[in-house]
């Protein structure tokens, strides 16, 4: 399969990446992937790329210094509010 149709299908694959490929909107994509090795490999690479980035986003921690500053501001704003109430 070549040309526009193929390109559109791959764009759809990109959109549905991560969705359940057994769901009805994905059935034509799934069917194509079963027949087309190059597309299957391409989609697999995209999936692995996304999975690695998801993992990266889950690993991030707030630096302690940044939290200390934030908590100081949170508690300081309470003191300021009290000051205004007086």
């Amino acid at each position: 399969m070549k040309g526009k149709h193929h390109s559109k299908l791959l764009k759809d694959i990109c959109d549905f990446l991560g969705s359940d490929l057994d769901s009805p909107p994905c059935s034509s994509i799934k069917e194509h992937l079963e027949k087309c090795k190059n597309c299957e490999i391409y989609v697999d690479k995209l999936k692995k790329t996304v999975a690695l980035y998801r993992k990266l986003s889950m690993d991030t921690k707030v630096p302690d210094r940044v939290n200390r500053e934030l908590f100081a501001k949170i508690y300081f704003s309470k003191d300021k509010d009290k000051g205004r109430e007086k």
Partner: protein
Amino acid sequence: MVNRLEEDKILQRARQGDRDAFAELVKMYGDRIYGLALRMTGNEKDAEDVYQDTFLMALRKLDQFKGESSFFTWVYHIAINMAISKIKQRKKNFSENGLEDPDFDRLHQEPQKSWPDIELTQVDRERFRKKLSKALEKLPEIYRTVFILRDMHGLSTEETARILEITPSNTKIRLMRARNFLKNELESFLKEEGILL
């Protein structure tokens, strides 16, 4: 992880001015908000500003939070808007620097080599993380924001489009180009590491 009921109790205390309760909420969701800020702004200094300003704004506007969404969703949207403002202030690459569509024709002209399952033990973990971050930073902002919201944080196409004030079809195009760009970057790195031949 606390459940919604426990979160509501903490929120109630925070609304009554209990700063310890608000600090608990920060501890619960801080890492995720900071991660979003870091990826969207692409640097630690801006991420720290976005992170702190987000929670300080949430504290100020806590009485306006009606509980129609979860507290996290509400704060998350504040953080996205803060990060977008920060990026726009810098005006760096926000509207230009287009990427091309993947060359789908070429994809079918030569046999594709598949990737193995990439175990983080195969590479220097810290160096790999830095490489992933660097590749993300290289993506022009208009693509990066879409990729972060859609793929790293799991927002829908429609929600991403609404937040970024672009059309859903534009969101899809940007996402496709972003994924393809990052895949290529990652492929180069894996070749350098000798994991791919």
